[in-house]
């Protein structure tokens, strides 16, 4: 698939999460919204085609892409080597830092302390892979279908710890100030726009688009609006 084909068709299908605030949400009108949605709008505008937003879920977003249901994912997809085998990633368009986060009463300072503890994560998310990587024997990783369910489990006390991004953490802090704190950092995570592998020309167009929008400050403005701060340094610089 090429940009020309998309332009010829006149529309682009972009997959995004709707349960990953503030990147992807359902707004009060019942429409997909959030940082990802606005980036997708910007991209479609840039291509000069109409935008067709397709809500996807964490576990099925890559299958959605690979099975042609969407052309492009702007779905807060963290850039990882495993995923890079499946899809092609653009330069980062957003970024987060992932922490182990949880009850103030739970003493955890490093990976080894996770042994014997319940940790909630969103299945197949970056949190999942990185905690799975470092977790010692005996860690009980509970995988939920999405980040929100994991947050839900933390808030309702079903798990004392979870893998969470800075963005999610700031929301939790707003909802339940003082109950939880950050334990330790897992990794910094760039999020990229994804296409099916081998579509070099399309990917170049996307990277070109990102470079221009970073340059113009439009991307940063969106980030300020939704996430409440500028784009992280490591995103602006690229990897």
């Amino acid at each position, binding site marked *: 698939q090429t940009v020309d084909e998309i332009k010829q068709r006149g529309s682009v299908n972009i997959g995004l999460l709707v349960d990953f605030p503030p990147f992807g949400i359902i707004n009060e009108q019942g429409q997909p919204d959030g940082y990802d949605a606005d980036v997708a709008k910007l991209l479609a505008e840039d291509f000069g085609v109409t935008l067709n937003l397709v809500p996807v879920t964490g576990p099925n977003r890559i299958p959605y892409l690979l099975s042609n249901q969407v052309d492009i994912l702007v779905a807060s997809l963290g850039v990882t080597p495993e995923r890079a085998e499946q899809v092609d990633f653009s330069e980062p368009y957003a970024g987060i830092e992932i922490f182990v986060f949880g009850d103030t009463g739970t003493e955890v300072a490093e990976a080894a302390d996770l042994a014997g503890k319940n940790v909630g994560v969103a299945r197949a998310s970056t949190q999942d892979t990185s905690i799975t990587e470092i977790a010692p024997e005996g860690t009980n990783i509970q995988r*939920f*279908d999405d980040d929100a*369910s994991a947050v839900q489990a933390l808030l*309702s006390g079903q798990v004392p710890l979870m893998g969470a991004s800075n963005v999610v953490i700031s929301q939790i802090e707003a909802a339940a100030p003082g109950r939880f704190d950050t334990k330790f950092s897992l990794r910094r995570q760039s999020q990229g726009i994804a296409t099916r592998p081998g579509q070099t020309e399309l990917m170049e167009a996307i990277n070109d688009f990102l470079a221009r929008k970073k340059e113009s400050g439009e991307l940063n403005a969106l980030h300020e609006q939704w996430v409440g701060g500028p784009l992280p340094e490591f995103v602006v610089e690229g990897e």
Partner: protein
Amino acid sequence: MGYQLNFAPVFRNFDQLLAGALVTIQLSFGAMVLGTIVAIACAIGKTAGPRPLRWLIDAYIEIIRNTPFLIQIFFIFFALPALGIRLSPNVAALTALTVNVGAYATEIIRAGIESINRGQVEAGYALGLKRWQIFRYIIIKPALRTIYPALTSQFIYLMLTSSVVSVISATDLAAAGNNIQSQTFAAFEVYLVITGMYLVLALGFSALFSAVQRYAFNYPLAR
């Protein structure tokens, strides 16, 4: 686009699937046993209990039968902690399945009890047996025999329903599949294999049930 089916990643992780299948079996059996106990208690309550109790049991049955299992399990896992009831995912799954099958089995078992001829009970009384003895020695077995087919197909349905419990991070067969799927992205292959495994489980359960039937209800019926 020519999609190549690739089962290698599925079978590479087959031990995970087996572990999941074991949990599915445990959950199903656990819920069958506990659910049957709940159901017998409720059936007795409904036939012989005081009015408020009967009313309560009716409400339980109607609520469970008229809402989706998915909602029930969300409620038990995410909402009950607000009342201080906090269950681990597999225990919550077991609880939800028990509560669910209990409601269906209550109606089945009650029908079984009601199918017992009143003369059987009277014969028990006339021999000096007490109420609970009559229930234990005279009613239960023939009643179970009558409803056995309905009860066991409910159990198989229960086992299939249990595939939903991965939404609360329980570690059953479907969850194992989801995990493999999310690592390997071989979605269709994974689900094809799991579906086959569920089918095998269902067939296995029904074979087991008919073996039990032959063993437990081996007395002849009147023509």
